[in-house]
């Protein structure tokens, strides 16, 4: 068995090389490819390939394995805590080498393998036509009855959604790179001008709704122009963000305010990363005081477990946590009435987060989480409104920023 594996790997490498050379010849002239390469310039060499080329490589690998009378497979990196490592130096989560082999001639995987190929072909069509579409659209595009049977290639969108995630990690390409976008979620305003697909947008004149952050925010789509911002503030919820916008917090404090509608989508995270990397703006995170809030901060700062391969492009290791802290209730004299008792799940989740390698060594974070567990309550940002509607924009956050009360 061991011998076989080695042989297969060699074959794979050879095939990949062949495919790469073939592809670069083919698509090398395309403008799009070159600009994309610039955008992802920091990534591992193997990742430099454009998504389109990676799909072609995959197809060639499969065809080659079939020609060698071998069971074709796709190795899909495992998306689990067990397969990520925290890189102390770069302070981001990196994906490990564990993969799950999805092979065609395995009864329980055959259908998934077929679906993976279908999604891959759907994405390659999108990229060929230089179009983007929603994941639901792709589901319908790939859904049909298999010839000569009554079986559908896909029955539920859930099936195609997980396959898309698999393909993202297998190809080390974001779905946005595969021509797919999620429902846009998240908005921003601030003293800044950007160019979105050629349209110049003044982010200080976005009214009450703000600029909806698109799913694809790569350099060729969104370009930053002049700005007067000193920092970026990520707010967990749209409702609280509206308070900040209405109170024109961004004008007073010269910052860009962003919200991600809960866990920020990839577009928002990628944009934060670019604002931080390209404009050197510090990023502050304002979330509820509960395990979910901690995790949002964790994802923004170190990257997520399921998309660990993209941490380099999305994580903001310099991000700071401004609140809410479990000590804030006492500090700001909040009544006990506005706290919520923690649930069993909260406690379990808090302990999980506490033990993440990237929190385990930070004493301040251990204190923060321990304190929340000790009090046995969580706090929402809205709790501050018990004082005054604009308490959060006028007193709470300015005081915190001034005092530099951040957690790393």
């Amino acid at each position, binding site marked *: 068995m061991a011998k076989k594996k080695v042989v297969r790997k060699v074959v794979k490498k050879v095939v990949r090389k062949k495919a790469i050379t073939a592809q670069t010849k083919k698509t090398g002239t395309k403008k799009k490819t070159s600009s994309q390469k610039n955008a992802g310039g920091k990534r591992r060499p193997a990742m430099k390939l454009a998504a389109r080329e990676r*799909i*072609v490589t*995959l*197809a*060639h690998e*499969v*065809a080659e394995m*079939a*020609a060698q*009378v*071998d*069971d*074709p497979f796709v190795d899909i990196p495992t998306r689990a805590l067990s397969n990520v490592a925290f890189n102390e130096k770069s302070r981001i989560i990196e994906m490990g080498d564990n993969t799950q082999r999805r092979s*065609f*001639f395995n*009864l329980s995987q*055959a*259908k998934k*393998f*077929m679906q993976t*190929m*279908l999604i*891959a*072909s759907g994405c*390659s*069509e999108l990229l060929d036509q230089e179009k983007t579409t929603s994941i639901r659209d792709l589901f319908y595009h790939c859904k049909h009855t*298999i*010839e*000569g*049977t009554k*079986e559908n*290639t896909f029955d539920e969108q859930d099936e195609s959604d997980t396959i898309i995630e698999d393909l993202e990690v297998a190809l080390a390409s974001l779905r946005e790179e595969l021509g797919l976008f999620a429902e846009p979620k998240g908005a921003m305003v601030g003293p800044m001008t950007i160019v979105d697909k050629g349209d110049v947008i003044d982010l200080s004149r976005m009214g009450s709704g703000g600029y909806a952050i698109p799913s694809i925010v790569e350099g060729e789509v969104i370009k930053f122009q002049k700005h007067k911002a000193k920092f970026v503030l990520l707010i967990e919820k749209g409702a609280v963000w509206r308070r900040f916008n209405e109170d024109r917090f961004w004008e007073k404090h010269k910052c860009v305010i962003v919200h991600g509608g809960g866990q920020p989508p990839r577009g928002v995270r990628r944009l934060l990363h670019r604002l931080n990397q390209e404009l050197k703006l510090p990023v502050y995170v304002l979330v509820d005081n509960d395990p979910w809030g901690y995790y949002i901060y964790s994802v923004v700062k170190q990257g997520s477990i399921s998309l660990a391969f993209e941490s380099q492009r999305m994580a903001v290791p310099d991000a700071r946590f401004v609140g809410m802290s479990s000590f804030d209730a006492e500090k700001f004299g909040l009544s006990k009435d506005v706290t919520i008792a923690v649930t069993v799940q909260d406690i379990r989740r808090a302990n999980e987060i506490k033990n993440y390698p990237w929190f385990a060594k930070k004493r301040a974070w251990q204190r923060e989480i321990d304190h929340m567990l000790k009090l046995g309550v969580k706090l929402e940002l809205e709790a501050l409104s018990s004082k005054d509607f604009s308490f959060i924009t006028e007193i709470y956050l300015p005081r915190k920023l001034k005092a530099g009360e951040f957690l790393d």
Partner: protein
Amino acid sequence: MPTLSRMTKKRPAKSARGASAAKPRKKSAAPSPTAETLAEKQREISVSEFFAKNRHLLGFDNPRKAVLTTVKEAVDNALDACEEAGILPEIHVEIEQLSEVNETRYRVTIQDNGPGIVRKQIDNIFGKLLYGSKFHQMKMSRGQQGIGISAAGMYGLMTTGKPMVITSRSRKNKPAHHVELAMDTRKNKPEVTVDVETDDFPEHTGTRVSIEMEGRYTRGRTSVDEYLEQTAIANPHARITFRAPAKRNDEDENGEVTLLPAEDRQAAVARAQQESRTTKVGEVLVFPRTVDELPPEPVEIKPHPKGVELGSLMQMMKRSEHAKLGGFLRNEFCRVGPGVAKAIVEGAGLTTQTWLKTVGHDEAERLYQSIQRAKIMAPPLDCLAPIGPKQILAGLLKGVRAEFFTASMRPPAVYRGNPFQIEVGLAFGGELPNDSAARVIRFANRVPLLYQQSACALYKAVVETKWRNYGVSQGKSAGPEAPMVIMIHMASVWAPFTSESKEAIADYDEIGKEIRLALKECGRKLASYVRKRARIKRESQKRDIFTRYIGEVARALHVIDPTLDAARVRDDLKVVARHRTELADEMAAENGDMDALGALARDEHTVILDSDCEGGEFQLEPRDDELNTDQKMRKKKSKRSKQSSASDDGSLFE
């Protein structure tokens, strides 16, 4: 008081037939019956009279059953006669509807190629109840009492007034005797009405019986058809032809009803014999011969001491030629040597030299008790002639359209001093009906038992067997539900029927146990086959799934890169698919999954016909824990071997 009440009780009992017995005497006009007047009415009842009134006891309850019983009795006799004479049986059964007007008038004719019957015995054999060769011998045979065929003749006579017609040739090249026989039921005596010599008999030797009777012919369950089908299964060495009553139309009215010409029958037989399967040729249903060997002739044995009851023991002592107890025991019973004889008599406080004449009731009872305590070897078992697993398979293959056949035979065992042996055959799948309970066909001494299934020990054993263990579903207190035929044969010198019509076997523990053990053996073989079949189905499903998706994958690859040829990728993947599934098969074989099948294929008592697994919809009964199946099996195996060894050593009589 006690004396008085006894007196009053006794008197009405004696005069029970007097209608006025309960009434006060003074008011009755007729002279009161005396012992003398009653004595005039008291007389012997002849057996034939008794059975004429109680014909249901013999299986003549209704016209339909009467036809079946007649065929059954005659065929049983024919087979017995042929086997005893060492002739491969050729039996022809014909049922004719005689009259359009009277729908219930039938003639049943059975002809065999047996040794024939000498003229002087014809009268008694056919015209007298309880006359026969088989009642007095301890030997395995189909008939037992000598009632059957004469009862059928009697039934015919009573319902139609026509005598039975017997044609028999006992010597080759000699004319046959044609005898018409009525019966005086009051005297149980035959009355010959016609007695001529004739050349109208197609076989070299043999017998033909024709009985006209009130009857009814239908097909289906418990019909002549079913009886003959099952008889053919249990007697693969016999060739049976059957012509059922044709639908008569008015044009035939003047046409005389005649037996099928012998040439037509020969032609049909030739056709069917080629097929070696039950075949219908023209009007004739032919059950061909699939085994050319006669079953071994069973040996007659003496009774076993433990099988004899006190009364018959005393009878035997009265009839014995031996003067002393020792000689009597040693010579009238089997398995009694000087040592055993001594042990028995001493246990009864007697000696071997005790004169038989001096043994009274008390001594006999002590003797009887002593026999029960004594250690006596089980009776010799060569008196049994089982069908044999190979013959059972041949019989099932001929008549049952299944795909899996297996048979098993238990070593002989003993109940109440009577040796017996159990054989089981099992057919599964194929064209058998899928959605109903398994069919159980029962045989006693090669005779099918068609009625009273649920009262029969053979069927009870099927119900008591846990078929779920063998991957077959089973309802509560019911038989298995599967496309399956279970055949059970009990061979015995004396089959313990529950009634004279011989429809069900009485429930003895020893018999039930043997059947269950035989069923289990077949069940295990079935289970490994069913599992293997399920696996093959899975494998082919696998191949199916792969081929189904191959097209999609190839097309997807072509979309991704048009330089990849979809057709080529498809072909490549198909090659891999074949290769992969073969590899899986091999691996399964190495893992021992297929061992069972290999063993099955080598088992000479199992036949697997080619069948496409696609067709069979039968689902394996889910087991509690597939993972631990192996361990369970191993556990069961060790248990099982203990069980069977305990029953195999024949230690019943120790």
